[in-house]
């Protein structure tokens, strides 16, 4: 579980986050929603231990999170950003192996190699393992990055220490095929003691894959919801400055949002 208490952040005299209290639950797909500039990315960086908050605390269960503990955090927390470019033709398996860096010293163990192979198999990229990363398509590159972060917090079954996976707009460059594939693969981590926290821009995607929601507006929490139907249309209209209308999927019965001006 990831707990933020009274988290504030200021940069260059500007207040970006103010008194944010939030709990991201274990074995849930926690989604952070909010318009551009609401402070989502900053909140994620603080929660992931990259930035120290100006006020407040972050804990993973009993563990206090600080940037000074970078190495320790790296063994149980991974972050997938939205697009990682490489200027060098590194092989796919070498990129995935980076996820194991916090776990080994000079040379990877057989176990590290196994985990890399398993992570590549999970994202269905095993046959590309020797290909140069920059020659892959954007969607394939993102699959490889997912394999890298999965390798970083890999555990068989339910491990003793719980893990945390942050996703910072992981699907914003991807077509629907890769979007669905990637988000389903991350949902596969649930039930193994992993807390998944994702920033997603597409509200319908967020509602389809998420099972706990935090709506951020101008650096403050506007709403916390457990289910999609607990999010009032009026609030969404106000926060995103748009007209919103809910329709029902005739087969599944779940809510789909339509937006207009």
């Amino acid at each position, binding site marked *: 579980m990831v707990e933020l208490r009274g988290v504030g952040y200021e940069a260059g005299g500007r207040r970006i986050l103010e008194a944010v209290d939030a709990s991201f639950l274990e074995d849930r797909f926690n989604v952070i929603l909010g318009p551009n500039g609401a402070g989502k990315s900053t909140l994620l960086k603080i929660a992931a231990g990259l930035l120290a908050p100006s006020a407040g605390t972050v804990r993973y269960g009993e563990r206090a999170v600080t940037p000074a503990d*970078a190495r320790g955090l*790296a063994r149980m927390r991974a972050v997938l950003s939205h697009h990682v470019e490489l*200027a*060098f033709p*590194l092989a796919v398996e070498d990129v995935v192996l*980076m996820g194991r*860096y916090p776990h080994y010293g000079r040379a990877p163990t057989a176990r590290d190699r196994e985990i890399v192979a398993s992570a590549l198999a999970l994202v269905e990229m095993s046959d590309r393992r020797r290909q140069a990363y920059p020659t892959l398509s954007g969607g394939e590159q993102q699959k490889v990055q997912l394999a890298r972060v999965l390798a970083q917090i890999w555990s068989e079954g339910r491990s003793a220490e719980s893990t945390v996976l942050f996703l910072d707009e992981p699907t914003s460059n991807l077509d629907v095929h890769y979007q669905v594939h990637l988000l389903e693969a991350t949902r596969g981590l649930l039930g193994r003691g992993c807390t998944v926290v994702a920033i997603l821009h597409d509200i319908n995607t967020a509602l389809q894959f998420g099972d706990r929601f935090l709506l951020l507006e101008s650096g403050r929490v506007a709403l916390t919801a457990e289910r999609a139907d607990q999010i009032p249309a009026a609030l969404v209209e106000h926060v995103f400055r748009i007209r919103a209308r809910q329709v029902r999927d005739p087969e599944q019965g779940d809510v789909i949002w339509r937006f207009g001006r």
Partner: protein
Amino acid sequence: MLSRLTRRQFCLALGSLLALALVASAAIGAFTFSPAQLVRDLAQAAGWTPASAADALGRNVLLKLRLPRVLLCGLTGAVLGVSGTIMQGLFRNPIVEPGLAGTSAGAALGAALVFVFGGTTALAFTSLGSLAVPVLAFAGAFGATMLVYRVSSSFGKVNVFTLLLAGIAVNAVCNAGTGYLSYVARDPQARNITFWNLGTFTTADWRGVAMVGLVFAVCFGWSLRYGKALNALMLGEDEAAYLGIDPQRLILRLILLNTLMVAVDAAMVGVIAFVGLVVPHMLRMAKSSDYTFLLPASALLGAVLMELVDIAARLVIRPAELPIGILTAVIGAPVFLGMLLRQQRLGGAPVATGGAHG
């Protein structure tokens, strides 16, 4: 064929190549040695076989002139190869080398100060004696590199664009300083600066070999610890931090060890361009961009290439020899232009790739 070799086999092959290049480089020159002669002279020098008077001249040439030159040349190649690898890792760009970030130009300015004012007692650094050139070269190189780094880093982050532009500015200032010094210098000193700016192994002696060898051993050993970190840095500073690496500390340490190695070497042999660019490039093409492989392999390949170029420098205009920097520029500059063209064709911005976006 190369791709079938494992990385270990690849490095072993490079090592064997280096052994061959060292022997060839020791044998070839104004005074030619056969392999049998090399063995005999070395055995006599080591005292394993009684020294014969007939071999005295050859032995002297080999021990006092040829061997220090061959070793200093190999060490220089290794220093420049490793330095190119480290800097390309730091800047996340394959077209960077020590000449670019002000390191070489700063070292040249520091050394030129000693060449021109070294004779005047008024300056404090004359008390450094023979260490004056390496110490001032280091001061110049470190000052220039740190200035480039400070200018280009804000909010604790290094901006690659600014870094490259700052490198151009600092290079211009250092070159102007060196140019002024060679302008005001009396003739023999000016000639010294010219030679030094083109690189030369003709002044090699055992003291230089020992100094560069020691500094290289320390810096190279130190750099081997950062193979994984340099790989992680390819993903961008934030991604590296998520993998447990402190990018700011890493960058500072790498600049320090890189500057130390390049400056001490440059103080002995002058400025030799493009080796640091070409060596990692060849290794990336032949094998892999993994820094845990590139770091050791670039030391070996750098040494091999430098020996080959030095042999060529001794042969092309026999009995005179070409300054080594002229040859490396003639070979390296087209490679550099080719790399630029290729990056442009691939559509990637040559200076801003690498890292996470968003």
